[in-house]
């Protein structure tokens, strides 16, 4: 089951591309809402891949990843909405969003360089909460973020006159708003995947893996652990920032409640459940955790109604319960994730027994 070679083969690429192009049109037959769910799935793929650099490659457990997503989302919201009367174009905002998130990443990374494992986890968690609390309260004395009210009427993505909201005709094909975002997100996600793959097999990537396995040994063989850890934080954060920007534009509305601790845990769970450090695994994790709740909502609820005549278990609480159990069970029985990288699996088998 060598997926790497499969994806690299021309036929594989062709088939995957055809599938990705067709997907939004297939989904649209079930309604644009499904395309929107698809959009969110890809957005989470994007986020999970960003976090994968920090957690999966460098082995730094980050429980505050949502903070960078928030920074990106608010950057877009502030620079492209009536809140400050600014309407900057995408090519100006996205780099700023990525840059600010990157800066936030370094800001978080530098004081925590010395920390490892669970201490790092708890400090990053605190950092995520600090960012959220500031976003929630920076409406006075100077109104920066508009506080808990959030920011509305955020501009959609647009390239010149080509807007991503509303339906347009391209080459005789009608493309709806969500479908356009889909293609944008897929393009970005492919970019991130390529960066991830390149990183993994580069000097930097190998150095990260060395740090992940044994920091002291890594230091001993001459790896600059400080800079490399900062780099991991900065890169992961930048992806988070870009994803946040797109989220903001897609939703047209941001408020601090979208950036709670639970979201951070959710993204972490995608990485961990799928397979830490293994790109196809992370993608699987992200898609599973985004689509599964929808299935529960539209499957379990009506099913209960049909069988018992009333709702016994609220699908919403069932979703969280399943999610928590999944974390526990996967850690217990498949600690490398549902689709781990072949090397990692080998390692675990060797050391596990």
């Amino acid at each position, binding site marked *: 089951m060598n997926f790497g070679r499969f994806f690299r083969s021309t036929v594989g690429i062709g088939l995957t591309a055809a599938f990705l192009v067709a997907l939004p049109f297939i989904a649209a037959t079930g309604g*644009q*809402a499904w395309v929107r769910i698809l959009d*969110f799935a890809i957005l989470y793929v994007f986020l999970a891949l960003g976090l994968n650099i920090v957690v999966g490659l460098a082995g730094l457990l980050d429980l505050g990843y949502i903070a960078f997503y928030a920074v990106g989302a608010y950057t877009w919201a502030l620079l492209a909405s009536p809140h400050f009367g600014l309407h900057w174009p995408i090519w100006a905002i996205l780099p700023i969003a990525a840059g600010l998130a990157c800066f936030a990443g370094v800001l978080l990374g530098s004081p925590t360089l010395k920390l490892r494992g669970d201490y790092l986890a708890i400090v990053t968690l605190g950092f995520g909460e600090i960012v959220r609390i500031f976003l929630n*309260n920076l409406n006075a004395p100077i109104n920066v973020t508009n*506080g*808990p009210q959030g920011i*509305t009427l955020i501009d959609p993505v647009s390239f010149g006159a080509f807007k991503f*909201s509303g339906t347009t005709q391209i080459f005789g094909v009608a493309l709806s708003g969500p479908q356009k975002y889909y293609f944008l997100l897929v393009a970005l996600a492919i970019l991130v995947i390529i960066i991830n793959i390149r990183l993994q097999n580069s000097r930097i990537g190998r150095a990260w893996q060395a740090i992940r396995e044994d920091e002291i040994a890594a230091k001993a063989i001459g790896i600059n652990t400080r800079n490399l850890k900062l780099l991991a934080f900065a890169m992961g954060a930048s992806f988070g920032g870009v994803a946040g920007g797109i989220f903001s534009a897609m939703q*047209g509305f941001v408020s601090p409640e979208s950036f709670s601790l639970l979201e951070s845990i959710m993204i972490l769970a995608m990485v961990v459940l799928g397979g830490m450090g293994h790109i196809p695994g992370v993608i699987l994790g992200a898609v599973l955790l985004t689509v599964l709740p929808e299935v529960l909502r539209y499957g379990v609820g009506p099913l209960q109604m049909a069988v018992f005549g009333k709702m016994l278990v609220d699908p*919403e609480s069932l979703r969280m319960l399943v999610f928590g159990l999944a974390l526990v069970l996967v850690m217990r029985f498949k600690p490398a994730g549902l689709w781990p990288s072949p090397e990692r699996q080998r390692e675990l088998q060797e050391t596990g027994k």
Partner: protein
Amino acid sequence: MQAKLSVVALSVAAAFALSACGQKEEPKPVAAPAPAAKPEVVVKLGHVAPMTGPQAHLGKDNENGAVLAIEELNAKGMEIGGAKVKFQLLAEDDAADPKQGAIVAQKLVDAKVNGVIGHLNSGTTIPASKLYADAGIPQISGSATNPKYTQQGFATAFRVMANDVQQGKSLGEFAVKQGVKTVAIVDDRTAYGQGLADEFKKAAEASGIKVVANEYTTDKATDFKAILTKIKSTKAEMVFFGGMDAQGGPMAKQMKELGIKAKFLGGDGVCTPEFMKLGGPATEGQFCSLPGMPLEKLAKGPEFREKFSKKFGAEIQLYAPYVYDAVMVMADSMKRADSVEPAKFLPAVGQTKYDGVTAMVEFDALGDLKGGAISIYKYTGGKLEYVETLGGSTMEMAKAEVKEAVAEVKDAAKAVAGAATAVGKEAVSDVKDAAKAATEAGKDAVKAGAEAVKNAADATKAAVEKK
């Protein structure tokens, strides 16, 4: 001033005037000569509220309100554009999650609904309203009170409930009426709590109340001693809390523990039995507000309550009457525009003048309810006791007054009748005096009633003239 006759006449006249107003709302289309009956048109109305998650019970209540309205409309059988219409409800669940809200909104837009009722929470209503506005679908919410919803400038966004600005303002007015000079404001940093507290602050400051402390908590906190201690040092006469009952109750309790004598005032978030349960005796004598008027005070209120509990075997939770009105307003607008096409009947929604269960529904330029009423309640003996209504349209007030006046007149008449029987039964010498006194008392009551009816009638007239 004489005679009951004129009183009765007046009240009857007033009643007729009112019912006439009511009827005017449904003008029969000028004999639409329906030649060959057109096929039945199905009008799809979307309804969105959380059906799962912590607010599922409120979501169900909203949905029940919509279901009731739609069943009544279908039972009545409406004709629009010369064709018989059948209303159909597409109920969706947004789980009170903004992201989910946008997804189901997209779903309704895809389903080409003619109008949308909802959503329940402001947090989901606001992002969703953009999608409806882009698709040109009219949206009427029965419960989203955040001012931002209608301030975005969407022609499609309406609500049939007083918003937080109106509520904050009325609470400010009430604080002034209570003779309070200094106030401390606490909010829970949610969109609802902060918005309400800000509006209260504006209103209080505008009328000369000094805000001596601004403190904050969160919607998950249980300990308020630190901020309350600070408030204690400012010697504020009243503590205003913008937030929910789960925090308000313990807050009132801890105020008492710290020996703070200040009054406690809050918005609809704390106007619940839950607040009294959690706050215990510390809540006694404190005040809170709810948008709208109590159902009992409304002309069609008790009737609605009865219909509702008969149909669903459940009590009204909160917003069902408002959602019911929202559906009715939507249908009424279609009727007036004689079209179910969103583009055609949307202008008619803005011109609504519908005599609903909860209020005389009229919209201002933004789509907000004109003159939304706010009622103040007092916690007494573990119950919410109605105190007064602030704001509200003249029409509504007039109607409530007429209702009360009629009741008073009835009571007075009963008293007089009672006195008369008493007179008949007892044939003693001082009976005359007693009878006289009784008649006198009855007369006074009648007089008072007459006065009230007259005032009400004047108001009604004024309101009618304004039309």
